[in-house]
């Protein structure tokens, strides 16, 4: 299969590349763009990005594997990121994470069978004043990360949140 950027992604690509004195410098933002376009960074996508930027494929592979935000395999629609670092460690993050593993029936970085949720234990989300913190991103709505600022101080609140997302998906939103 030959990959190609959509027209809007192509335009975005050109804008990104123009910001730097050489093309390799555009690699991180272009990999983010490619992930949005092609769902995840497969070997084919790495090859495609390498060609677009004129960078050796092995360098693209090295970068794509060094950074944790590039998914090398498909992930669910909702990426549920639970912080368990110091402030959240103290205020219930590990308990939320354990609860969600059970509720969703997945291990860390696992995806539910219906492809709706990928659960991940993450490092500090810079939201320590509102801990415990969860950040949820929705592939279909990249503009609005769901970032919980009120204390998720009880597990029923976490349950309600997951149910809400399930309903959103079912409703076709």
């Amino acid at each position: 299969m030959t990959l190609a950027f959509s027209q809007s992604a192509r335009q975005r690509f050109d804008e990104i590349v123009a910001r730097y004195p050489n093309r390799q410098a555009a690699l991180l933002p272009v990999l983010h763009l490619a992930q949005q376009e092609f769902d995840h960074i497969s070997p084919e996508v790495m090859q495609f990005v390498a060609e677009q930027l004129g960078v050796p494929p092995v360098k693209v592979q090295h970068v794509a594997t060094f950074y944790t935000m590039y998914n090398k395999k498909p992930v669910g629609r909702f990426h549920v990121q639970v912080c368990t670092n110091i402030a959240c460690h103290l205020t219930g993050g590990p308990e939320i994470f354990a609860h969600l593993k059970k509720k969703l029936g997945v291990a860390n970085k696992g995806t539910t069978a219906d492809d709706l949720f990928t659960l991940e234990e993450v490092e500090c989300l810079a939201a320590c004043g509102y801990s415990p913190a969860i950040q949820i991103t929705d592939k279909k709505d990249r503009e609005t990360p769901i970032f919980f600022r009120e204390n998720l101080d009880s597990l029923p609140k976490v349950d309600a949140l997951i149910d809400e997302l399930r309903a959103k998906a079912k409703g076709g939103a």
Partner: protein
Amino acid sequence: MKTDVKILTAHLDDPAWHTLAGYERHGGYNALRKALKMTPDEIKAEVKAANLRGRGGAGFPAGIKWGFLPKETTKPIYLVINADEGEPGTFKDRLIMERNPHSLIEGCLIACWALRANTTYIYIRGELFSSIQRIERAIAEARAKGYIGKNVLGTGWTCEIHAHPGAGAYICGEETALIESLEGKAGQPRNKPPFPAIQGLFDCPTIVNNVETIAYVPWIIENGGQTFASFGTERNGGLKIYGLSGHVKRPGLWELPMGTTFSYLVNELGGGMRGAKPMKGLIPGGSSCPPLLPNELDTPMDFDAVKKVGTMLGTGCATVFEEGVCTVRLGARIAKFYEHESCGQCTPCREGTGWLHRNIEKLERGERLEGGIQLLDSICGRILGNTICALGDAAAMPIQGFLKKFGDEWQRHIDLGRCPL
């Protein structure tokens, strides 16, 4: 000097402050207009007079760092903003980027003018989606209004500002790793020297500053460096954004004169402890800082005073924990973080962080440690100072600090063969 002045948080009650119109309504971009009539040396003199210490953790004086650029160069000079906010416990730069992004943009423009740079890259941690959005919007607005671009405010001067997203790697907060990452590579720190001011981004002279450091520059230019300096302590000028999280009644962020005490932050502003349990300790400025005990909270929060009590001000965002918290478990979580984030380049850090983490976990489970808790101290000693960048130190220092302050509790894990709590 005590003051009620607020700078970076002055208009948080205005929900439109993050927009260009909102920012201008409160006098935004007047400092840029003033700066463009000043010479670069005049601006640098104000920043020096301000005693503005870097807010990224190390507290290096910004005015002095700016002076390290070569006097003559045929290469372009770059300004790089470190917006990789990832030090666990830290959440201050996000506030600036999301609620007051134009102060950072205006600061970048003034700093570029002073440094004779024409390009800024703002390296924003990839996970901070809302910060990236707000900064990108602010840049677009400022460009449309003629503050950024080919002919800034009709002066003929060119200045570009670009947001650059990271992609999930704490090490990229270290300035040379950040530069590698900006060049499209894995974030592995470089040896220093050469320092970035001489040979940084694309091998050109580069100044790397934290978000908060640069966001204070417009106010300093408008009101004078000495006025800013007078708010703080002797060598720590001005105000700073302090954070508070953990087991306090009211966690949050406050902008305060440098040198305010921890006890004022925790007890007056944070309302003290959240429940009946007394405080057990406080991590002063991110997970790499050794903890303080409740009887040390009279320490003023400036870089020098906190250093005197054996720890670091770091990012100025403190995390409080109450009695009943197992410091071995907390230490294990910190050690796990540094093991995960070690870039793998230097052996003492790559191997040492994992070794440290595994042994603290063993201790927490009550398993026997060959060599007792001294083993942990000796692992720390073998990491400290033996690596290219300070991530290794950041992993070792807090554990040494916990051993020093809570060593009895760590020893009791061995004596009892289990966690005593």
